[in-house]
């Protein structure tokens, strides 16, 4: 189910502004890959091209190829809607749908496009997804309460459950713990470790310790100055990036000399 991601000569634009230049990266299935780098280096921008969410912003587009198990998601005739169903995304701030209950939030991916299912099927999906997000025990007695009534960490795990429910092959996470307290962060990090058994997980993080804790491979992005495009500087096993980086910029960043 998990799929390999290959970016080939990818350039990402906001209008005329080239935000990320010439990214080539191979991300293995059933692994956790972290993107690190200073603010504005384009790691989130690149992440959002992997499920074609980048182009939702007016004037934004990407050139080049992103291959999911060899299939170019920027190919002609590819519907971004189908790409997004295949590549799930968890956002920086927890964003459960406020008008829906916990149960409806988990089923949102199905409800959105009007998929009909029996109540028992729906119940099974809700339980499986919430268990998969380590949230079932905390919310099983209040599935009909609004999702916005949960704590921040619970809301974020609800969002992960919502993403997992539609059974994507890739899960993208854009700084999923930056709005959470340390305990909730730990819960989400544990969850990320479990998710990689079934999914390809890509996570953007500002927190280098987090990258070191959860990621198998780490990619370092950097920017030469304001107005310059962000670039992929180094991509290697996490342990090498942190203990034996080949590039001086990476060395400076992970040792805390800037960023």
């Amino acid at each position: 189910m998990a799929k390999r991601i290959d970016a080939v000569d990818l350039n990402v634009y906001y209008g005329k502004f080239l935000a990320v230049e010439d990214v080539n990266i191979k991300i293995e299935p059933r692994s956790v890959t972290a993107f690190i780098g200073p603010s504005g280096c384009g790691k989130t921008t690149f992440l959002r091209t992997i499920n074609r969410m980048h182009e939702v912003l007016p004037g934004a587009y990407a050139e080049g190829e992103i291959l999911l198990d060899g299939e170019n998601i920027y190919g002609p005739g590819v519907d971004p809607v189908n790409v997004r169903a295949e590549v799930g995304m968890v956002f920086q701030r927890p964003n459960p749908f406020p008008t829906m209950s916990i149960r409806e939030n988990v089923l949102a991916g199905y409800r959105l496009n009007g998929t009909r299912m029996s109540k028992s099927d729906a119940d099974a999906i809700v339980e499986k997804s919430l268990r998969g997000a380590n949230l079932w025990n905390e919310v099983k007695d209040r599935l009909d309460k609004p999702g916005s009534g949960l704590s921040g960490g619970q809301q974020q795990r609800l969002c992960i459950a919502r993403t997992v429910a539609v059974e994507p092959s890739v899960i993208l996470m854009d700084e999923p713990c930056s709005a959470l307290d340390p305990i909730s962060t730990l819960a989400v990090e544990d969850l990320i470790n479990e998710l990689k058994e079934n999914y390809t997980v890509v996570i953007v993080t500002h927190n280098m310790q987090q990258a070191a804790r959860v990621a198998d491979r780490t990619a370092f992005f950097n920017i030469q100055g304001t107005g310059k495009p962000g670039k992929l500087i180094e991509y290697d096993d996490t342990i090498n990036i942190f203990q034996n980086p080949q590039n001086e910029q990476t060395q400076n960043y992970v040792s805390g000399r800037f960023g």
Partner: protein
Amino acid sequence: MTEKVTAHSSSAPAPARSAPSGLQTGGTGGASGDRVFSGLAYGAGGLILVVLAFVAIFLVTESLPALWPTVFSDQDSISSADTFLQYVLPLMGGTIIASIIALIIATPVAVGIALYISHYAPRRIATPVGYVIDLLAAIPSVVYGAWGMVTLAPALVPIYGWLHEHLGFLPFFAGDPSTTGRTLATSGVVLAVMILPIITSLCREIFVQTPKLHEEAALALGATQWEMVRATVFPFARAGIVSSVMLGLGRALGETMAVTLVLSPGVFSLSLITSGRNATIPSEIALNFPEAFGMRQSELIAAGLMLFIITLAVNMIARWIVSRHKEFSGAN
């Protein structure tokens, strides 16, 4: 709304007063400014209640002779009918029917236009379309009335003929279709055009405020644009849509000139396509008030009181609808 504001601002200065002298702002700043603002807010809130109370008192006292002629007047009954209810119920019916026609036509169109401007149109089209819609609101109602009478009414005549021919079994389209088009249905259409801008611009304001976070959440789950709108924009805007429709309804209920010019009034009838049938309260008042005195004047003011009550009831129902789903509104 007002109460909330005043409650907050009046409680704010209290801790400042009890603070030790070293922390005081020196007289000119914070605390006294807070008190002034709190006073202004109180005053504004109070003023609206006072004005409303005076209007209500005026309406009730002036209406009493018509509402209860044996006690408050020297006549046994009102002059236009046997009882006041006999007089006012047909008028209320006409008013409500015309407004409902207007809402049925205007609401879907307005929501559609607002959605187009906020979520579908490219910016260089959306902005001018928004201006044009706002411009519609600036046209005086008498102009709408004249347009309805001269242009719209004759244009609708063949449609009424068709409706009568094919749907004549419904009471709304029974009776002789009008040859001039000056019917309650035409009034409803004119009202729809009049309330379109207010509903559209309010809905647009609310639609664009849908949190990007939620829209992106839906899109990232594989929603199409329309599915995203249904899952995030509409639920978020629900209360706002209801409020804007109620504002539109308020305008339709109270609209005088347009209806007076378009409608050729008469007795109440369910048939919407016949001339010389139906009347609305505001146009009834406008047509008759200049020459009315004594009991007749009381009747008209009492009819105005009924309109006041209808509007009040409509607004309360709207608030109730909005508050039913508070828990899921996203405000928490």
